């Protein structure tokens, strides 16, 4: 249970799709002019991530990983189809997006009207493919965790686009230097928000921002409350270390 909660908050705040790894920036910048449309796209992203990440987890586990084809028989145990991941993942995503569009249109026209126009956009949203690729590279262990990862990184993306849309609606009334208007100021605000989100770094894992944090997570989930508190103290120094490492 604890690893679910940990992964959930970690993917929303610490490894936020937009602020930590810049995924889905294109649609983030293009569709964030109004809060209402931003909410629509954000919801669609959560929805699609929640479907594609577990699906690609299954593909990864039973087709793509080295030795994943063992279930076909012992003579397949040496096969490594890892180089096909990109094409498999993107094909899954493209078909799922198409399928979701058809299903939603059939069963819930009202949802389709609010999500509809965004769904085709999503097939080429980096956040979706990025979700699957990070799921693979972080070696997420169970289907449940993969689902959790999909949903929570979707929520992280949703929060980010909601926040920037609200700021952009307000900033229209401010006196921004002319050359910075529009795109420029949005970049800088996103950067500042990213700096803000950096401070979540020490929240769960004691400031460990390594991308391959999966093994350390396991160790820490066993730790008790008191060591957690100590970790926060250590976090500050570790954050400083990662600065130099990066």
């Amino acid at each position, binding site marked *: 249970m604890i690893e679910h909660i940990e992964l959930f908050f970690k993917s929303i705040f610490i490894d936020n799709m937009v*602020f930590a790894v810049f995924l889905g920036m*294109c649609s983030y910048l293009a569709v964030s002019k109004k809060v209402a449309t931003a909410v629509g796209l954000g919801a669609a992203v959560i929805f699609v991530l929640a479907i594609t990440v577990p699906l690609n987890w299954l593909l990864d586990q039973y087709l793509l990983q080295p030795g994943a084809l063992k279930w076909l028989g012992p003579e397949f145990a040496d096969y490594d189809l890892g180089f096909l991941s990109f*094409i498999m993942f993107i*094909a899954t995503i493209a078909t799922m997006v198409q399928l979701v569009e058809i299903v939603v249109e059939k069963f819930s026209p009202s949802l389709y009207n609010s999500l509809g126009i965004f769904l085709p956009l999503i097939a*080429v949203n980096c956040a979706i493919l990025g979700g699957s690729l990070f799921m693979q*590279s972080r070696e997420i262990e169970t289907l449940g965790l993969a689902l959790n990862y999909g949903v929570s990184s979707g929520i992280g993306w949703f929060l980010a686009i909601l926040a920037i849309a609200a700021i952009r609606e307000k900033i229209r009334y401010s006196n921004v230097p002319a050359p910075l208007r529009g795109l420029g100021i949005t*970049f*800088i605000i996103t950067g500042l928000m990213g700096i803000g989100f950096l401070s979540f770094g020490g929240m769960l894992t004691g400031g460990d921002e390594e991308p391959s944090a999966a093994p350390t997570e396991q160790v820490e989930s066993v730790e008790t409350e008191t060591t957690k508190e100590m970790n926060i103290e250590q976090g500050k120094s570790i954050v400083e270390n990662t*600065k130099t490492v990066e």
Partner: protein
Amino acid sequence: MGLLSKKDAKLITDPLTDNNPITIQVLGICSALAITAELKASLVMGIAVLFVLGVGNVVISLMRNIIPSKIRIIVQLIVVASLVIIVDQVLKAYAFELSKTLSVFIGLIITNCIIMGRFEAFALGNGPWRSFLDGIGNALGYAVILIIVGFFRELLGSGSLFGFPVLGDAIEKTGVYSIGYENNGFMLMPPMALIIVGLIIWVQRSRNKDLIED
């Protein structure tokens, strides 16, 4: 006149300045900024996109009359994905360390909006040679921004370029460090890439007033 006619040359030079894919068209930011903490990674990313976009544009342009428009997105994705797999495998074979640094971001070239954007906007309606030039031009425009950002982040963040310390030794206190200069570790943090791009946009738009948005 040489190799390129004036119109063709414009296809290459335009994206470098007034029609830059990153700062003007707002495409391809996704997979780019996270890897610009080092100049070397930025350069390799630029070359990878140059290859994928140049070849991909030609392939799509050759197929433009036989792709049914309903499934063109999937066809395009398959073409890009195959090219990216080639890049990924080559990097893994010849520059394994670098491919570890770039990790998933090579894969994310697939969903790089520049590539889909150029396929849709140019390759589907133009011949192979012009599409090739357009692909090269846009990829160069993308690479230029990456290299500028990578240059400043590596220089100010770690005091080196391509991994070579150019400002002296930070620990031994030689070079500029001897007069009290310090590396700004913050430049290596992801958000600084965004702020630097914001500043590039600022400079570019104050030099060319036509680009200012309302």
